[in-house]
């Protein structure tokens, strides 16, 4: 209770500061109502509001208020290898989200095809099991969907539905071992506290194969970047599935069910499926395609210090830096091209914070003459998989990872 009051004060103070900020700006910018940003999505609409209205969150790109879809402003990725919790993107499926979580009352159930059903308190989890840490990228299956052409319906994200955090928690394997998985188990299904508004709508649940669930890497996180998770990022517990798309990273995790037959629930079997083709890509309109659940991530890389359309000095060194990730493994190299892909040069990789996380990179180059240049970046992961130079397409807008390009002007 005392803690709730303290938090309330923090939030109230933040709101007051927010209001003061608005008033201050309004003096110098008449008619200023709300901060807007343009996302360069082909065909638009481009305009989005920047919101500071969400608890425990800083400025975020508002994609939807309820249930919340909040995108990380891209400049945040230039600040460091870990994405700050208060600007980490947010994506919910259902609108009934608990807003009052008492750590003394919360419990995680482990049930189903196990020797012993468990009801674990947060204390059991934080102090009864070995703690592990892992840096990993959490990326929405539909990150960058807004760049698909032809456009597809869904959350119209630019590139900010991703983030990298240092996750602290316990191994899912240790929790499953405590319950004792019976022989014949095939999958493990995860459910959180969010609920649909309509009673008979399908609860959000995701499943992993039993061997994946017990691989010792999948974890139940109670902290990100050394702090408890913001409520909208899944407080108090979130499943972390390194190298896999965020749809599996169930938020507010409170129910684990070991299954002795494959999960057929809507969210595993029907939603979040991709064409079983290279790059999950098909031709628009193509039908009768075999679909499979989305799974491992693929490599990506981005420039973070120069936005498309910016000017740089010709005949002087330009510093280029950014982030990359290998997807389901580490980054082997990041290459860049200043001549539309005719020649590639290797950028310098910064410290390796773990194979599932962002890897910072940087380089310097000099454009010899004034003019327009297209700059490309390409990550090759440690399995030898490189970003493709043509964009993929599928009707759900999943798994975009084409070589990124920015236009710069040397003057």
């Amino acid at each position, binding site marked *: 209770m005392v*803690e*709730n009051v303290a*938090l*309330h004060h923090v*939030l109230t103070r933040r709101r007051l500061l927010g209001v003061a900020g608005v008033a201050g700006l309004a003096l110098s910018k008449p008619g200023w109502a709300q901060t807007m940003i343009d996302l360069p*999505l082909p*065909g*638009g*609409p481009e305009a*989005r509001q920047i*919101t500071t*209205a*969400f*608890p*425990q969150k800083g400025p975020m790109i*508002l*994609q*939807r*208020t*309820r*249930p*919340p*879809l909040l995108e990380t402003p891209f400049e945040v990725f230039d600040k460091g290898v870990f994405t700050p919790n208060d600007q980490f993107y947010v994506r919910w499926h*259902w*609108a009934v*989200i608990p*807003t*009052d*979580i*008492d*750590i*003394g009352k919360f419990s995680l159930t482990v049930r189903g095809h196990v020797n012993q059903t468990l009801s674990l308190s*947060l204390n059991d989890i*934080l*102090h009864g099991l070995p*703690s592990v840490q892992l840096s990993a990228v959490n990326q929405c299956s539909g990150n960058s969907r*807004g760049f698909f052409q032809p*456009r597809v*319906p869904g*959350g*119209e994200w630019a590139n900010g539905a991703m983030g990298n955090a240092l996750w*602290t928690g316990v191994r899912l394997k240790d929790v499953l071992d405590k319950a004792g998985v019976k022989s014949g188990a095939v999958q493990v299904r995860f459910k959180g506290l969010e609920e*649909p*508004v*309509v009673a*008979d*709508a*399908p609860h959000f649940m995701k499943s992993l194969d039993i061997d994946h669930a017990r691989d010792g890497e999948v974890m139940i996180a*109670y*902290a990100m970047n*050394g702090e*408890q998770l913001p*409520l*909208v990022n899944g*407080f*108090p517990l979130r499943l972390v599935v390194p190298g896999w798309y965020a749809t599996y990273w169930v938020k507010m995790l409170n129910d684990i069910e070991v299954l002795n037959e494959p999960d057929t629930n*809507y969210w595993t079997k*029907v*939603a979040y499926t991709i064409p079983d083709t290279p790059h999950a890509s098909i031709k628009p309109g193509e039908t009768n395609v075999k679909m499979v659940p989305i799974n491992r991530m693929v490599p990506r890389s981005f420039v973070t210090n120069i936005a498309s359309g910016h000017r740089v000095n010709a005949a002087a060194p330009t510093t280029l830096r950014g982030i990359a990730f290998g997807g389901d493994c580490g980054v082997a190299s990041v290459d860049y091209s200043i001549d539309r892909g005719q020649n590639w040069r290797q950028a310098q990789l910064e410290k390796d914070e773990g194979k599932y996380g962002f890897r910072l990179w940087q380089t310097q180059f000099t454009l010899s003459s004034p003019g327009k240049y297209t700059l490309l970046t390409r990550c090759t992961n440690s399995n030898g998989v490189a970003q493709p130079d043509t964009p993929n397409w599928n009707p759900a807008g999943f798994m975009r990872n084409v070589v990124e390009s920015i236009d710069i002007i040397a003057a």
Partner: protein
Amino acid sequence: MFRSFLPAIILLGVASIPFVARAATPFELKSVKVDLPDSDKMFPDGPGSDTINNNCLACHSAGMVLNQPALSKQAWAAEVTKMINAYKAPVASEDVGPIVEYLTGLKGAK
């Protein structure tokens, strides 16, 4: 001037030790009670706007729909059907046509 900084640097070094020690103590969680903002945004006025406002805003705010690109009538019909069949949106059958028409009018592919 330079010399006067030295004790300050040493003091900072000493002061940082308890911080390291604190970081090594077990991690504790704190209960959270917050409010999530809601949106009062309605769909723009026009034929069918009452129907879409009444049927769709119970489960989600209007913002994401308004952020959608131009889509064909067929694509909008598929979206509305998905909301009803997959997500159990309680939309009366006589409201489906007006909602699809409204969305196509607002954001139909050219």
